[in-house]
Each structure stands twice: as C-alpha cells, then as structure tokens.
C-alpha cells in the first residue's frame, strides 16, 4: 500500500466512530464575527491605516496625485539612493523627478544583483486599515516578490480611498489566491530577543508608505 493509501485509510478508521455529518460547509461554521470593527468613513479608514502603520514603525506620508512625483524624488534623495528597482507597470510619471538609476525587474536578474540596489518603489493591491497592512499581489505595478524583499528600502504607494479596506475579511474578498501574495505590516522585525519587537532583520529595514489621494 502506498503511504497515500495508508494515511487515508488511517484517517477513515480514526473517524469510523464519529457521528455522520453531511452539513454543507457553508452551514458548518457559525460566522457571527464582525466583517469590520466599527464604522468608519473612507477618510477615517485612511487615518487608521496611517496610524497603525506608524505604530509598527513604517514611515507614512500623505500627498495628492500631483505631488506624488516630487514626494517620491524627495524620499529617495533623502535616503541617498543611487539606484531604484522599478516594476514594469509602475505609472511612468511617478518617478519622473527621480535622479537615481532605474533598475528594471527582470526574470534574469539575480538576488546578488538586487542586493546592490538601494531602493524599490511599488504600488500595492490592497491595504487593511485595522491591522496597518499593505498587500502586494505581484501585479505589473508591484513586480516579482524578491524586488520588494532584497533591497533595504521599500516605498509603497497606496491609492486612497479606493485601495483601503477596513478589515482582514474585506481584504481577503478582494484578493486572488492564485497570485503569490505578500502581506506587509511594518518593516521586518523580530521578537526573538526577550520577546521585544526589534525592527530590521532580513526584509527591508525601512518601509515608507505613501497614501496618495485624488485621481
């Protein structure tokens, strides 16, 4: 017998005494929990997102669509970035004021090459106000997972209000499980030394989130 058959047979035997249950799954679980915690306007949700991101040490900025190119240029300049990864679908004008060398997100680039790049700028798929989370789904304006991982400085742009949801349940509804997802809540951190949160281990040690309004 293969291990597959063996394990399945063991499971069936283990459950032989369990009472029959053919409740369809939609009715098997009581889902009386909340879809969101409290009622907020779009503006309040954006405020809460900013507050929770900052609480976990992300640097949060807010601007209008017109101000975005200058703000991004300033953030990269202040950081002294000489190179920046640019996903293929990032709106062309976002980085129009940036001096740093643009590094394309290529299938052939190696992790070691990415390690020499200073920054990365991306959009996102959705942001969650209650938890201070930004989710990437690898879309053309976000790039491959590794480009937001290896460089030490990640600037992510959230379109407010349309990309902001209140809660985790609402975020999952908007996301496609077939795509590789990365949920980011603050910069890389660890609680491994005496259970104290310390920022900055392997992922980008600086996370800047730009909430941009007006399209």
């Amino acid at each position, binding site marked *: 017998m293969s291990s597959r058959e063996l394990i399945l047979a063991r499971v069936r035997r283990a459950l032989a005494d369990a009472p029959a249950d053919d*409740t369809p799954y939609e009715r098997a679980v009581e889902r009386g929990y909340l879809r969101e915690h409290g009622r907020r306007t779009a503006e309040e949700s954006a405020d809460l997102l900013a507050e929770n991101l900052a609480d976990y040490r992300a640097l949060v900025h807010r601007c209008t669509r017109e101000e975005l190119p200058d703000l991004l240029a300033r953030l990269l300049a202040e950081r002294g970035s000489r190179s920046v990864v640019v996903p293929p679908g990032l709106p062309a004008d976002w980085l129009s004021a940036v001096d740093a060398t643009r590094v394309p997100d290529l299938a052939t680039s190696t992790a*070691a090459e990415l390690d020499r790049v200073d920054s990365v700028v991306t959009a996102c798929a959705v942001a969650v106000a*209650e938890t201070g989370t930004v989710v990437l789904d*690898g879309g053309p304006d976000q790039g491959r997972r590794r480009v937001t991982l290896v460089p030490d400085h990640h600037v992510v742009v959230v379109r407010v209000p349309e990309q902001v949801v209140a809660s985790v349940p609402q975020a999952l509804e908007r996301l496609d499980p077939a795509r590789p997802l990365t949920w980011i809540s603050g910069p*890389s951190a660890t609680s491994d030394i005496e259970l*104290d949160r310390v920022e900055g281990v392997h992922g980008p040690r600086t996370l800047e989130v730009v909430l941009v309004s007006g399209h």
Partner: protein
Amino acid sequence: MSGTFVGMPAFPKAAHEAVQDLTLRGNLRHATHTIRAKRAAAVAEVSDWALLREAGKQIKDHTLRHLDRYLVQVEESVTAAGGTVHWAADADEANRIVTDLVRATGESEVVKVKSMATQEIGLNEALEAEGIHAYETDLAELIVQLGKDRPSHILVPAIHRNRGEIRDIFAREMGAWGRPAPDGLTDTPAELAEAARLHLREKFLRAKVGVSGANFIVAETGTLVVVESEGNGRMCLTLPETLISVVGIEKIVPTWRDLEVFLQTLPRSSTAERMNPYTSTWTGTTDGDGPRDFHLVLLDNGRTDTLADDVGRQALRCIRCSACLNVCPVYERAGGHAYGSVYPGPIGAILSPQLRGTQSEIDASLPYASSLCGACYDVCPVAIDIPEVLVHLRERIVQGGPVTHEGTKVVLKPAKGHAAERAAMRAARWTFGHPGALRTGQRLASRTRRFHPRTLPGPGRAWSGTRDLPQVPAESFRDWWRRTGGDENGPRPGTADGPAKETK
C-alpha cells in the same frame, strides 16, 4: 515521532533541574510576563474575539471530521497549481523524501524557515547524516543552532537565552558557520539582529533549495500560508529555485475565506500584534516569480493516531500560537526543555504523548506536567480544552485502555502498581514544591468536583486504590480563607503558609 530528546528524564526530574537554574527562570519569567500583558491588550482590541475563537474551533473540527476528503482535495489543487504532493506516514519517510528531493537538485545545502514539523521529524539531523547542511534562518532558531542547543518555546525557541548569552553565542560560533559576528558586538537587540542579518544574507543569496513548513493549507485553492516576522521566511520561499514544504495533515482549512478567522486570531495570540510583519501565501508555482519547483510533503507521524481518540483529537486544532505556554505557571518555572519534545508547555503535554505514544517515561509523565489551572484553555484561540485532555490521558495511562498506535488499535495495559505509585509521588512532590501551581490547581479541582472519580486518575490511581480518596471540599481552603476575610490578598506563592495547610 522521532526528534525525541534521547535519554530525556521524566518531566518531574527535568523540571526539578530546570527550576534550580536561576538564569533560566529569570529569562522565562521576564519573557512570558511581557508577552502575557501584550496579548491581553491585543485581544481586547477585537470585540468579537469569542466569536472568532468559536469559528476557528468549528473550522478545524469540521476539517478534521472530513480530513480524508480535504487531503484528497489538497492533493488535487496543489497539483493543478503546478506543485508536487508527497505523502509521509512517519518521520523517517518524510526525511527520506526531503533528502531525495534535495539530492535530485545536486545541492548540498538548504536554507530553512522555522517549522515545528521539520523539528518534530528531526530533519536537520537526517540531512546532515546525508552530507546536506541545513541552515536555520529564523533568528531564534539560529541562536539555538549556533548554541548547539534545543528549542524551548514554539514561537521563540531561544526564549531561555537572554541578550548577553546571545551575544556570546554569536561572537563565539558565527565564524565556524559562515560570516563571523562583527568585532565589538554588544548585547543590544538591534545589534544582535544586525549581526544575524549579515551572517545569513550570504546564505540566502546563494541558496538554491528552501525548506519550510506552513501555518495553513487552503484545500479549495491549494494555497499555502506562512506567517512570520523577520523576512527570512520570504527569503526562503521566494529566492531558491526549489521549495520543499513539510506540513502536518492537520494544517488544512477548507476555504480561502477561512483565513479571515485565523489571520485575525493567530498574530494576536502569538506575538500579540494586530498583524505580524510578513505573511506569504503561494499557490503552486508562478511563472518567473519564485521557485520553479514546489513540493508539498504531507506528514502523518502520529496525527492519525491522535485523530482516533475522540477526546484527544482536539489537540489537532492547534495553530501553534504558543499563547498557552506564555500563561502556564508550570512552563514558566520548568522551562521548555523539561518537556522533552519540540512541543513544550501545555500543548506539548497533550500532543507529544499522543503523537509518540506513552511508552517512554517522559511521555507517560507529560500529562502530569500541569496543575490543571485552565489558563491555557482560556487563552487558546481554537478553544482546546487542554485540562480535559490531560485528565483523559492520565486515566489512559493508569487504567489502560484502547489507543491507536501507528494506525493499529492496541489495548494499553494499566501502569503497574509500583512504577505508577512512584510516578504519582514524584509528580505530587514536584507540584507541592510549587505552591502557586498548586493553588490554581486546587481551585479548579473544587470547581469540577462533581466530575471527580473516587480514585485518582493517572499514576495516582494505583496509589489511591488502597486508600480512599478524601472528598474534594466544595470550596478550597484558600478560597474559603479569602472569602471569609482571612487575608485580602490570599497567601502568596512561596510563602511559609504554603501547601501543608491545604492538603488536609
């Protein structure tokens, strides 16, 4: 279950030794008390906690009830998404599968994300025996690996080490494994984290094979989920060309939507955060992004035996948050190593004896590593009634009865009088040396009085067989004392008025 700490003394002896270690106790006390308060605050933020907890329990119970169906569905969906599914009945088989997969890549090293399942099967040792180096990349696992130590906590395996000890381990050992620690390394957590970042980066950048576990597998979509903090998980999941995930069969949830429960309850229960820094989900392989080859190894290794026990199977709901460790008065004093397993604390006390059976002295003594105070049940985000399972396992050990071992029903003989008596006395002596643990235990005992047998469950039974068990009073002495105004604060643990009065 392999990965047993070989030659491990039974819990009371190991715990006794740990209690003597003042540094260990200090480290544990500091860490668990810090996280306890934070967890309570993080949970209080969500007004529907009780409903989330109940939903989590129901999702897991439903999945376990239909586990055969969901396993087949996982196989179909992961395969359809481009992954390859392997089935491992036990630790040896899982290790063999992983070793062969790594060999097939021609590589001799792998980077690993912290995973309880791979610790449980002793994968690192198995790979090492075949000449394959496994590098742990989680900061705490790195501390454990470099310190040639054993993990002592589910979430923070190096919880027993303070910053000074970590500094010494890094300074002494990093050079032998790769990039040495920077000169003049101090013990500030930020510097220690930086040293780990530099040390591991070269390993990530050249790694061709990654090994992980997973927190969840979604049956309907074939999606795996890894919840982490540091980014080492992302490194291992996305940079290598080959990814091998070893996952216990109990990690399945039926639908994508089910994650809305666990992504709310897990971070708050484990690190007391609204959300952990990074959560990765992936479904098979993605063209041009991440590993080209993805292998899922579905691991039984005692889980189906656990499933066969209608009281004990609830342990399979566990999402490994470690909240029960952090509130446990016995864990706080004894430390993780005393449990002789990669699963320490209350969950370890019910999981290890079920996964491994109770043949060894340590496993037979684990169900006694508790005062039955119930704090673990209160915090558990999937409502596992750990005290209920503990009492059930004690009964099983002493009275004997049917158990399933490696898929076969066997009848366990009652523990022999002499040995059982000794075990009971050892456990009793240990508990009596810890009045705080005893106090909470007694309070529970009187609250659940009507369920109590006339004879003691556990090894106590052989002993009480010839001595009638005194009735548990309706109210414990301490509660009576407090209620009648004897002492507003009640006696404090460790004070002279300790257990002697209460055992009357």
